[in-house]
């Protein structure tokens, strides 16, 4: 059984398999867990605060240091939820579009592409407004995705997980050395950039969230609406076409949604790896591979995972903070390795 077949198990099989819990229940539990994680994220941090501080901070009139700290955690939590949801959905859609279980925005070089674009924008075009970062980051993500996909698809047999992952790793290496070539002579930009590069939600504020929210909502809707098309694509291009799905158009729609999602997530929070990889696989275990269930659950679980990773990063190395990008990389890489061991061995 090839990798593609393993991933793209037809929806019908998923639907007929008996499940211990209903899929609606799973969605509701995920939503409740996300709510719980958000509460944790507001309550737990480097500074230990009491209930009074939390209430005051959330209500918006911070009268103590603790309450002020809580008030700063609010936008951070919201940003973690938004970015995590976006990355989770982007990963699920990318894995569906490329029919590749190892697809992840960071591994495929998309996030480093937007990093390069942002750095070039700051250094050469004098961009200063965060809203212009957003546009540039999305353009960079789109360009990088196109390049990696094109390189990975060359040759006999189109793209395989290995070719795509290698093309992604190679392009990531290329992009990051270009980033340092641009950065090194400009130490002020470098100092500012190194915090962005690592991926974090610590610097969140409401302005940035308001800036990115409309775009993310639109991409979210487009992404979710591509569920039917992705289900058909999982059967193979010919079968999908026979079912009346416009293969090319579905790919472009869903792919664009994924690029906008991870490009804007990267623009506000820096490159965060492995969320897009891990989340869809976890969700597939829970609800099967029918995309109308998989996609919404990926949003919820992505948000849950990133919020928890952020909380973990605050608690682990008190009083310093571990940026969320590092937490996800350290937690996600073993998962990736396990996945490779499980699947890529039999395929060749």
């Amino acid at each position, binding site marked *: 059984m090839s990798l593609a077949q393993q991933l793209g198990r037809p929806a019908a099989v998923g639907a007929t398999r008996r499940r211990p819990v209903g899929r609606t229940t799973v969605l509701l539990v995920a939503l409740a867990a996300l709510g719980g994680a958000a509460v944790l994220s507001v309550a737990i941090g480097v500074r230990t605060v009491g209930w009074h501080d939390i209430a005051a901070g959330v209500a918006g009139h911070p009268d103590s240091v603790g309450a002020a700290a809580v008030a700063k955690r609010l936008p951070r939590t919201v940003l973690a939820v938004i970015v995590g949801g976006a990355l989770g959905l982007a990963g699920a859609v990318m894995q569906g579009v490329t029919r590749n279980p*190892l697809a992840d925005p*960071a*591994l495929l070089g998309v996030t480093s592409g937007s990093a390069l674009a942002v750095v070039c924008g700051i250094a050469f075009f004098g961009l200063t407004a965060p809203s212009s970062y957003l546009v540039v980051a999305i353009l960079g993500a789109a360009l990088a995705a196109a*390049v990696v996909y094109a*390189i*990975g698809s*060359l*040759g*006999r047999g189109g793209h395989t*997980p*290995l*070719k795509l*992952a*290698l*093309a992604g*790793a*190679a*392009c990531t*290496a*290329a*992009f*990051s*050395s*270009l980033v*340092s*070539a641009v950065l*090194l*002579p400009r*130490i002020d930009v*470098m*100092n500012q950039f*190194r*915090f962005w*590069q*690592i991926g974090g939600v610590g610097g969140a504020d409401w302005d940035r969230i308001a800036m990115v929210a409309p775009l993310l909502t639109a991409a979210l809707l487009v992404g979710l609406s591509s569920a039917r098309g992705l289900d058909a694509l999982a059967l193979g291009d010919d079968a999908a076409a026979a079912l009346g799905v416009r293969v090319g158009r579905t790919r472009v729609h869903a792919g664009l949604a994924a690029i906008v999602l991870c490009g804007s997530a990267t623009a506000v929070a820096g490159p965060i*790896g*492995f969320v897009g990889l891990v989340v869809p696989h976890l969700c597939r275990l829970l609800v099967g591979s029918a995309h109308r269930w998989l996609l919404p659950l990926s949003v919820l679980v992505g948000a849950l995972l990133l919020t928890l990773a952020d909380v973990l990063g605050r608690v682990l190395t008190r009083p*310093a903070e*571990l*940026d969320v*990008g*590092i937490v996800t*990389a*350290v937690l996600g*890489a*073993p998962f*990736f*390795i396990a996945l*490779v*061991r499980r699947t*890529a*061995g039999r395929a*060749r």
Partner: protein
Amino acid sequence: MSTLPVALVGGRRRRASRRRRMLALLGLLVALAFAASLMIGHTLYGPVDVIRVIVGQDVPGASFTVGDLRLPRAALGLLAGVAFGMGGVTFQTMLRNPLAAPDVIGISSGASAAGVFGIVVLGLSGPAVSLVAVVAALGVALLIYVLAWRDGVVGSRLVLIGIGVAAMLDSVVSWVLVRASQWDLQAAMRWLTGSLNAASWELVVPLLVVLLFAVPVLLAQARPLELLQLGDDAAAALGVRVERTRLIVIVSAVLLIACATAAAGPIAFVAFLSGPIAARSVGPGTSLLVPAGLVGALVVLSADQLGQWALGTRYPVGVITGALGAPFLVYLLARTHRSGGSL
């Protein structure tokens, strides 16, 4: 020999003579680049002055500039280039995949992460850093090998697992760098891009010792390594002790890569590009170890000159090799995929 068709013998001769010519040319170019990096700088010194410094005479001015600054730098570039080139091509040959270079599959990242951690967190310096980097790189190589093992090691699985490990280690490097004070930042950037700026005899001598040990070992294994490309079973049938050869080769290549990384940082793409460039220049059918080492040295020395003097800012060598290597990499990926072949 006499029974072989004339065309076959002729082809063999032609290839052998092309190989000899290209090797001589590469050697000459490396020597030229080495000499150029001794002579060219803020002050130009003629060959006579340089030779007098090397044989130990006291030349006003040149003794310090050439003897203490340029000579260690050029020596470090030369040795690191050879180490990266040979180590890289060993991995590429063994795994039958030009993309399976140590800088892609996480071995350089392991050395980097340990180096940065040693400097910034543990406050180490000098040979201790090299030692930590070597131990970590060997550990990472072992880890990747063990993780990729399931009824034998498949090259593609090893590469993918290496990519995962590299991603994790790179995040460790960035974490340590964020913790670093701004004063350490420039120094620590060496561990991200690779640079010869810190060159000194203390860095050169350990690297030289390791090269003197590891290069002969690798060269002795050149033939079995070539045969391994035919596949494990065929190689075993031809009398290669597969696992033993692989172990020796991996350990020596990792030693080369780790020590070079400890001394000069992970100079981007040198390990990755030397093999394919060497294969293009000397032609097929021969061991690529020596030509790849020469190409590595040539690339590092000339990129360092370029980075120091050709552009407005003084760039570390890794940035130049990275920027020059990226387009070549894309070309190589495209070509490899189209032909479906290896090096």
